């Protein structure tokens, strides 16, 4: 089975986010960039499916040259091939723009896939848009936020998280699936894998090579403002006898906060 996995380079979740107010962008200096955590579950699932059923795993990312680092990590984890779709644009927060690029790359450069795996969202932009958009643009069925995936011949069965339960979704392949925490436990790269990945030439394709004209990918999202939330004020801290502090806390919740 031929699997495509889409990965994005994002600041790790321990990052403190600072804002460059003039440009309304995130200050990247000092941040540690990683594969978006949900994308790692997607890649792990692809590798497990390949181990069980044969086939290939190709990892794809849209971004600047810095993105090569995470594509090398995909190789080191076991991806057979990777592709960088070069996009010099800073974060646009326009999921449809990214989805168009990916859908075009799939049609022109990555045809013949049975399964397109994504993380359930890129940590950072937090849009949860691109996979379902790619599915629609390519006319494929989808299951998003999936914690269990089984492939049986021409179809896939996925359990996806909904409020208070799960939806069991049956899809005809090819299909788009997005990975949620709980789907699996991603492996570490092996030393051998890291060494081999270092030597590998990483193919890249430009937006022009995908047939996009200069004005075709203008972001439809106009950033008006970007800010950090106002810091919360530390409140009243109670110490002492558990029974007394508990009573005082409930009094505050009732009389001061008017919550109960």
């Amino acid at each position, binding site marked *: 089975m031929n699997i495509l996995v889409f990965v994005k380079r994002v*600041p790790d*979740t*321990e*990052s403190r*986010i600072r*804002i460059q107010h003039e440009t309304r962008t995130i200050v990247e200096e000092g941040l540690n960039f990683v594969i978006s*955590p949900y994308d790692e579950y997607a890649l792990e699932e692809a590798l497990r499916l390949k181990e069980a059923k044969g086939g290939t795993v190709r990892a794809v990312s849209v971004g600047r040259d810095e993105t090569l680092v995470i594509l090398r990590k995909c190789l080191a984890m076991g991806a057979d091939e990777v592709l960088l779709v070069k996009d010099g644009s800073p974060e646009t*927060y*326009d*999921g*449809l*723009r990214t*989805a168009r690029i990916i859908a075009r790359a799939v049609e022109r450069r990555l045809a013949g896939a049975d399964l397109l795996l994504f993380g359930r969202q890129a*940590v950072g932009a*937090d*849009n*949860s*848009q*691109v996979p*379902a*958009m790619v*599915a*629609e643009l390519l006319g494929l069925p*989808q299951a*998003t*936020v999936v914690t269990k995936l089984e492939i049986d011949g021409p179809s896939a069965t996925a359990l*996806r*998280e*909904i*409020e*208070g*339960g799960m*939806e*069991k979704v*049956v899809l*005809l392949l090819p*299909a788009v699936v997005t990975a949620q925490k709980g789907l699996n436990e991603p492996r570490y790269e092996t030393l051998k894998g890291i060494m081999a990945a270092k030597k590998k030439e990483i193919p890249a394709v430009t937006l022009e090579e995908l047939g996009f004209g200069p004005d075709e990918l203008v*972001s439809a999202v*106009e*950033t008006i*403002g*970007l800010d*950090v*939330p106002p810091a*919360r004020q*530390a*409140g*009243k*801290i*109670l*110490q002492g006898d*558990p*029974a007394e*502090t*508990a*009573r005082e806390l409930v009094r505050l*919740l*009732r009389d001061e*906060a008017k*919550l109960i």
Partner: protein
Amino acid sequence: MIAAYLEIRDGKIKKSSLEALSEARRRAAELGVGTAAVLVGADVAGLAPAAFALGAAKVYVIEKPDFADYSPQSYTLALAAFVGEVKPAALFFAATAMGKDLAPRVAARLGAALASDCTKVAVKDGTLEFTRPIYAGKAFLSLRLKTSPKLATLRPNVFPLGETVGGAGETIRLEIAVPEGSIKGRVAEILKEESAEIDVTEADVVVSGGRGLKGPEAFALLRGMAAVFPRAAVGASRSAVDSGWIGHQHQVGQTGKTVSPELYIAVGISGAIQHLAGMSSSKFIVAVNKDPEAPIFKVADYGIVGDLFEVVPKLTEELKKALSD
């Protein structure tokens, strides 16, 4: 007009969809346009009065036996047909599991950009402006959409329900064709969690536990406290989930869920930055921790420094008394 798509689960309109409709009405009033709602399903026209009650003048109903179960592909066809026919200025969804699955597909079909998981909608210079958290709430982005209609999903539990204005409205049926063989995915079954707990994203009160709980057993204490409130859920920090003490669907934080309940009670949670990101938009935060230096106290409105195994039972008892008064 501004329209809201009303999600139906278990034969009822979801509260978060009614919140989205309420916000649609408020912003429509500001823009001087009408408010509408859209229902999709097999037998849903009977639910229209709930939308009229919140001020929708028109409810569009798209009924088909095939729509009994949600499918992102078929519901996308329905909503794209609605937009094509009715041409609303904006269409809001609740940012629920279904809304997040469906809205991007609709957006792609319409070629329109989407604002995800918004926590604020404003009207400026006669146009809608959306504010949404990014980095799980470490930053907030305000944006305008250059495409039409303006599509947005709105975070549950953030937008207040509008006042009931009574009133009847007009029910308009739309017919749509679903080409044979075009739907390649279907929901075979819905598996409910046995406990029937509500989701942390939808709860009014979230009682969360972290490493300080020392094991899965202590979550029973938190469940006991949650049970005191009418709409409460149990949450957890990443370390509690990664230790296998509780399922990941309870995780609050940057690789879990972002919540904004009325009251968030953090028990034995030190307050790692990725956890704070997921809960800092809660209206009130209470922390119980034995370490007075724990970062969680810096964001808490009220805190108790103490041993959670002593404090939580006392607190539960006091809450019970207060709530039964």
